[in-house]
């Protein structure tokens, strides 16, 4: 029993989950039951994949011990590259491939510069944040291109499920989330990600290709950010060069609320997803309960700090539960 309690207290996503449940309950009561109504859930779940996909990538990368502040810009650059290619007559699928190739290249550059010159990824990706945003505006030529109407956007935006509860994008998000969760927890590569972030020297001493593991994490993170941006553009119908601004910090907040350690080595994909959901819930709940929506950032900021403090407290509690390890 004590052992079970200890195991659960040590789960990094616990604090996020508890906060989520509390907030949902509060909003449900304050909004007279509208919050969990079908209409409103559709709204939340329709936006969740965009924040959620970025959060998954950022969580993965943070567990490997690195940072990516450029995700918000990549979020805009990917769909913009795709749309510009299409205005030049490139068909949808190759244009999309091109967009993802841009993401892979940015992830590669982020990783390559960070690892080769041994500088903090905070700096590398901060630089990339500005550069990728600038490229987005430049290639757009100041006028956002129109998306042609024969793109199969329904693959990402149409409503499906019981009572048309969620968009197709939610299914993509679910699949990516499950795959990323499996990757991290069940595959040897995931084990390496955790080991590299947890204690790099130990990982290197056991023969793990540290640089390649981080490189792949950087590239995965960029691709997921681009994917999220593409989904948003399909939903909005036009690739605006300004989308995704500030999303990088929301993604870090989501990962941290979900229990990911800033220092790497600790965290789960589920935690990152819960963190993203929490952010969406706050955003929606504040509006629904007629609180001034400008409190949104305040609430996210407060919860980020609160979740980390709560997590540290829970972990300290767990440590104090005395379960004999040796027999």
């Amino acid at each position, binding site marked *: 029993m004590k052992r079970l309690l200890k195991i659960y207290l040590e789960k990094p996503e616990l604090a996020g989950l508890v906060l989520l449940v509390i907030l949902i309950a509060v909003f449900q009561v304050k909004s007279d039951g509208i919050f969990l109504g079908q209409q409103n859930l559709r709204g939340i779940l329709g936006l969740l994949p965009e924040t959620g996909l970025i959060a998954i990538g950022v969580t993965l990368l943070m567990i490997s011990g690195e940072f990516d502040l450029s995700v918000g810009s990549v979020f805009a650059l990917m769909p913009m590259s795709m749309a510009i290619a299409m205005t030049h007559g490139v068909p949808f699928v190759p244009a999309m491939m091109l967009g993802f190739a841009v993401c892979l290249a940015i992830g590669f550059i982020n990783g390559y510069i960070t690892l080769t010159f041994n500088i903090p990824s905070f700096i590398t990706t901060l630089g990339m944040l500005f550069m990728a945003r600038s490229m987005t505006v430049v290639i757009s030529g100041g006028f956002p291109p129109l998306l042609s109407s024969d793109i199969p956007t329904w693959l990402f935006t149409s409503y499906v499920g019981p009572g048309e509860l969620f968009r197709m994008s939610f299914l993509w998000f679910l699949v990516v989330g499950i795959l990323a969760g499996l990757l991290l927890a069940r595959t*040897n590569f995931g*084990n390496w990600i955790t080991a590299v972030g*947890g204690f790099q020297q130990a990982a290197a*001493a056991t023969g793990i290709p540290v640089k390649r593991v981080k490189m792949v994490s950087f590239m995965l993170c960029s691709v997921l950010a681009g994917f999220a941006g593409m989904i948003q553009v399909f939903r909005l119908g036009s690739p605006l060069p300004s989308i995704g601004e500030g999303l990088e910090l929301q993604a870090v907040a989501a990962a941290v609320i979900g229990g990911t350690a800033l220092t790497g*080595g600790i965290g789960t994909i589920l935690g990152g997803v819960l963190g993203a959901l929490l952010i969406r819930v706050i955003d929606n709940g504040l509006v629904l309960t007629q609180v001034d929506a400008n409190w949104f950032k305040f609430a996210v900021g407060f919860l980020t700090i609160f979740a980390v403090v709560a997590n540290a407290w829970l972990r300290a509690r767990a*440590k104090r539960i005395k379960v*004999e390890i*040796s027999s």
Partner: protein
Amino acid sequence: MTSPIISCQKIEKWYSGVHALKQVSLDIVPGEAVGLVGDNGAGKSTLINIISGVQTADAGEVHFEGRPVSIRSPRDAMDLGIETIYQYNSMVPSMSIARNLFIGREPLRLGVMGFGLIDLKKMRQESVRAIADVDLHLRTPDALVGELSGGQRQGVAIARAMYFKSKLMILDEPTNHLSVKETNKVLGFVQSLKEQGITSIFISHNIHHVFECCDRIVAMARGEIVLDKPASETNMDEVLDVL
């Protein structure tokens, strides 16, 4: 005379202006427990790093089991059967014992080109066995390594090396920062290696520890081997004298 399991021949290493290893040659025969002593900067860590693949030599050759080998990474060394246990950095504290035991060598249930799903069940079962084999009694392989004591961690590291049937085990200051009781436990592990016929190199500042569990003493100073004698033919005073 049995042929050596590892033979270092005229190893040279420079660090910009420092001549860290000067034509160091060392042969170790199977089953030997060699104690490597020396002051900081004597070159013992450099020599060990070259054997375990963390650094590469500027000149000289390493022969393992009679064949010349090129050890360019820790992985190369591990594939040859050379395992190194460091003072701190052989375990990831935020991961479970079972995962730590198999980092980089996870048993796979389904894999393509070396990547795939870990066989978690097998990993747990084998961890329990590996830990029990070194007389370390832990109730669960799911406990985080960060919750273990220093001595227990070294025990797990040694269990890992034993499990992967290492032929040569290098212990780099494994007793630093451990309590007396824990130190004795680690020395016990080292002695059990000898009983199982595993060759070992034990590095320590503490000459008492070395004499307690090694049968040959090699002392280094200023990048050279200054003493190499069976433990029975030398004593602590002589070793301290040459250092």
